[in-house]
């Protein structure tokens, strides 16, 4: 199966060469296949979020290389990275990162603005996605008027608005209730069936059943890898 993401000796060091130096990630070599669900598992502070940020092209490593579909992410310009984030990756953040002053539908649709998509088309695509996630009744609500689970559905809808090949979710179960977790699992399963690659950082074992591969992360290193046949 085709490799979609690969890293070589990837490292992220905060405050390098100072007395406050923190090696958040060190010599990470992983490979994720297209269409797989990959889970980065480990305790809090292990470096999962740092790794997932580097894989999602929203942060730059201190050293090492990351490749996306054969293209070296770490060598790309700011403009090229923006293009990758726009066209290939959909990110679901741990705290959802919705814009508080925008309604649910505007939060979902705003990534389309710089692409020159008309307001009507943006709203059509946004409402279609929100309806898919049973949020049709709450489209005009702002994030503060939504529950944690509902905010996450808006965040997932936003991640899907550009129809990306890769969905990245950082600790998706940490801010939602049990009912919402169940709904999330169904959603991930459905996205996987659509052929998308899904990378999840979590220590929630209820998501492990979905995984094709689990990378154990500890103290900024990959300490193990488990592959499953789904």
């Amino acid at each position, binding site marked *: 199966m085709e490799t979609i993401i690969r890293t070589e000796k990837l490292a992220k060091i905060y405050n390098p060469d100072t007395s406050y130096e923190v090696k958040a990630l060190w010599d990470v070599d992983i490979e994720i296949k297209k269409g797989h669900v990959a889970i980065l598992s480990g305790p809090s502070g292990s470096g999962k979020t740092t790794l997932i*940020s580097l894989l*999602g092209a*929203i*942060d*730059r490593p201190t050293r090492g290389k990351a490749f996306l579909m054969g293209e070296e992410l770490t060598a790309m310009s*700011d*403009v090229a990275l*923006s*293009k990758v*984030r*726009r*066209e290939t990756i959909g*990110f679901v*953040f741990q705290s959802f*990162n*919705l*814009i508080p002053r925008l309604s649910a539908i505007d939060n979902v649709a*705003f*990534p389309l*603005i*710089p692409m020159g998509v008309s307001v009507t088309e943006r709203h059509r695509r946004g409402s279609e996605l929100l309806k898919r996630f049973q949020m049709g009744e709450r489209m005009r609500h702002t994030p503060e008027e939504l529950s944690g689970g509902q905010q996450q559905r808006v965040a997932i809808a*936003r991640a899907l608005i*550009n129809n990306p090949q890769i969905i990245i979710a950082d600790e998706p179960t940490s801010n939602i209730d049990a009912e919402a977790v169940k709904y999330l699992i169904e959603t991930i399963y459905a996205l996987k069936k659509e052929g998308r690659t899904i990378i999840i950082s979590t220590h929630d074992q209820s998501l492990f059943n979905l995984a094709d591969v689990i990378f154990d992360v500890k103290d900024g290193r990959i300490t193990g890898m488990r592959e499953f046949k789904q």
Partner: protein
Amino acid sequence: MAISEGVKAESLASVMEGADIYLTLDQYGKNAPVPLKYLPEVKKINGVMRVVPRVLGRTYLGDSLAVVVGIPAGELPPSVECVEGKPFSSRGEAVIGVGLARHFNFTVGHAFMLGGVNGRMLKITGLFKADSSIWASDLIFIPFEDASAIFKTGDLATDFLIYVRPGYTSAVAETLKKIEGASFRIQSKELVKQYFNKGFTLKGGIFTALYTVAFALAIPALLVSSGFGLSERKREIGILKATGWQTSEVLEMVVFENLIISLTAAPLALLISFLWLKGLNGLFIAQFFIAEIGLFPPFNVPARFLPIPAFLSFFFSLILTMVGSLYSSWRAAVIPPAEAMK
């Protein structure tokens, strides 16, 4: 700026309706009272139509400082129109501005004491409204002799107002220079107009300088204050970048937002200043432009809204919002989104 322009317009209107030549004595380069003995000689000059000697002074009427103009009966300036009663015709009479009349509840027939211990009891024969609302507020016209007695000017006048036939101003001025025994200071209407223009330009310049200082102070203040809200903005920009926006697109959005803010702020500022001046009659602010009128202007504060100040208000608000947000937005946009969203 609107008040300043309004006052300037009214002042120039008054000048244009005034005398063609203002004659005083020249004492060390300054105006000095002119002896009445020159009056017949000046009247005889070819081209002179009328000469009006004036005594000008300021004195208290109750709690208000009033400008007193003493002129011969029948010589009220054309811009002074009696809205009630008639001009004075003999000593012991006066016409006063509607502003003062309103302040003291005076009407035609009332009498008042002017000038303290040397004062005169004057009976109001008329209330006037001048083209200039400032004039009408605190001006009192009284007979020349009464003013002379109140201010103890003897056989002197503050100045002579000389009205000449069209085209005779220069010739009359030349003849005045030749009168023996007197060193006159001759100020033509054009010269007075120039003084006004210079004065208002200076005043406008001072205001603009103060405005610029305030503007210069506002920029760092805005940078500091916008820094307080920067973390939220930074996070928002991080989200935009994480979802595929490019730095240039983020900045384009910020510029567009600022344009909208400025386009809204400038008309709003104009509307507020218009309402303040027309509705509240320049309450509190008029005193910065018109001396001694107090917090509550007793007359209609003149104001003119011109396109350049309106454009400047838009321009300055745009610059302020741009300076306050563009640099901080750029800084947030060029760092990795993960860092901006922290």
